[in-house]
């Protein structure tokens, strides 16, 4: 019991910590980072856009690793990690797509275009929604863990393609980090302040991801122990 409380304490600190970090990142994005000359203030979306995209990719990568580890070791905890991480990844990729769309309206003059990057990101998003859907379609715990792990591995195949899409196909999506296609619309060079802000936001989101996944795993563990208590009572 005390162990449980201690874990709770740590988690509470971490939640507060990520809240404060987000406040600082909002300050940095809105005030510390300079205004971009051509695009103006709308460029500030970029920081959360990149950070949430990064968390999406990271979350799906963790799902992949946890799925592989589950199939090797058959430990139930890896299944919990895989599932929680995919859920968080879907949320962040949604944020990534929505923020990109808001940015694209003034810069590309359209909410949406069937550009390779946008298309592959949407496919990735659909894949992990399918993953969550698959999760609901399996009632047996043990079987669910095995089957979703296999799908978690298959689904990850799309993630590197999304990352590579702006680099291998001709696209209008800018590549700020690394070289870009001359066709890209909304390209800009980062000043040192912008780089600092971006790195800080990415770090903040990573902390936020860790907090969220911890919460999610804890809730799942509680659900499992609760269902054990129930089945025990019915058994008696």
């Amino acid at each position: 019991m005390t162990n449980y409380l201690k874990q709770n304490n740590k988690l509470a600190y971490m939640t507060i910590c990520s809240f404060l970090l987000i406040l600082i990142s909002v300050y940095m994005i809105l005030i510390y980072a300079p205004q971009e000359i051509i695009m103006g203030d709308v460029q500030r979306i970029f920081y959360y856009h990149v950070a949430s995209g990064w968390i999406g990719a990271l979350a799906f990568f963790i799902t992949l690793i946890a799925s592989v580890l589950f199939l090797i070791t058959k430990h139930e905890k890896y299944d919990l990690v895989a599932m929680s991480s995919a859920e968080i990844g879907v949320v962040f990729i949604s944020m990534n797509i929505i923020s990109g769309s808001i940015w694209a309206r003034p810069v590309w003059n359209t909410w949406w275009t069937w550009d390779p990057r946008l298309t592959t990101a949407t496919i990735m998003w659909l894949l992990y929604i399918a993953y969550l859907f698959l999760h609901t379609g399996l009632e047996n715990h043990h079987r669910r863990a095995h089957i979703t792990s296999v799908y978690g591995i298959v689904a990850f195949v799309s993630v590197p393609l999304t990352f590579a899409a702006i680099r291998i196909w001709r696209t209008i999506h800018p590549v700020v980090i690394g070289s870009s296609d001359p066709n890209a619309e909304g390209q800009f060079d980062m000043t040192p302040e912008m780089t600092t802000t971006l790195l800080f936001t990415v770090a903040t989101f990573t902390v936020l991801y860790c907090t969220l996944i911890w919460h999610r795993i804890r809730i799942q563990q509680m659900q499992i122990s609760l269902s054990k208590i129930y089945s025990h009572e019915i058994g008696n």
Partner: protein
Amino acid sequence: MMKSPQDNTTTKFWQSSLAIIWKDWKIELRKKSLLSSMLIFSLMIVLIFTFALDLDKSARENVAIGILWVTFVFAATLGLNQTIALENENSTLDGILLSPIDQTSILVGKFISTFIFVTIIEAFVMPIYYILFEIPLFSPKLIVVILLGTFGYTLVGTLLATIAMRTQYREIILPILLFPVATPIIISAVQCSNKILSGASWNQMSGPFNLLIVYDIIFVGIAIMTFDHLIKE
């Protein structure tokens, strides 16, 4: 000459795969339901597209390859659902699992029989398509691309159909699981086919062609590595 044990297991593996292919064929030859329904379904799709897009001569050239691939993909999905559902009907999959064979040979057998079914349908649809749309489909390059695309699609489809059958949603969930996973293959196959039709040189189409091969190889790897875990549960 003595056979090494390695040789023996390989022969056994292929024998059991062949047995599964032969069994699926025998059922199909007696029922004749799968191939005929796939064929009629493909023709329907071609017709619906013709009406829906109001295809005149100029519009046809731009979208023809896309429609061809959509037809293949839908027909293959129908076939995938059927070949796996076949094993669910009387729980015959349990029977196959009880037999002392390498479990990956079940995947290989199921995959090859689906692949053959889909290829037969494609062989029927392509001449009809040629007659309807007057598009030069019979170049060796294009056939290679179609075979490679079908290979990857049916392989990952067999794997995911096995997953779908083990959920409570059954057939409904297969397209949801399969379409996003197979998109890289479809995208590269369509790009390749378009380039072939527009008479591009080998160099110009090497990008999507390589992507197609890479994804085929990735799916072979993933399927072999994960199928055991899937079927045991």
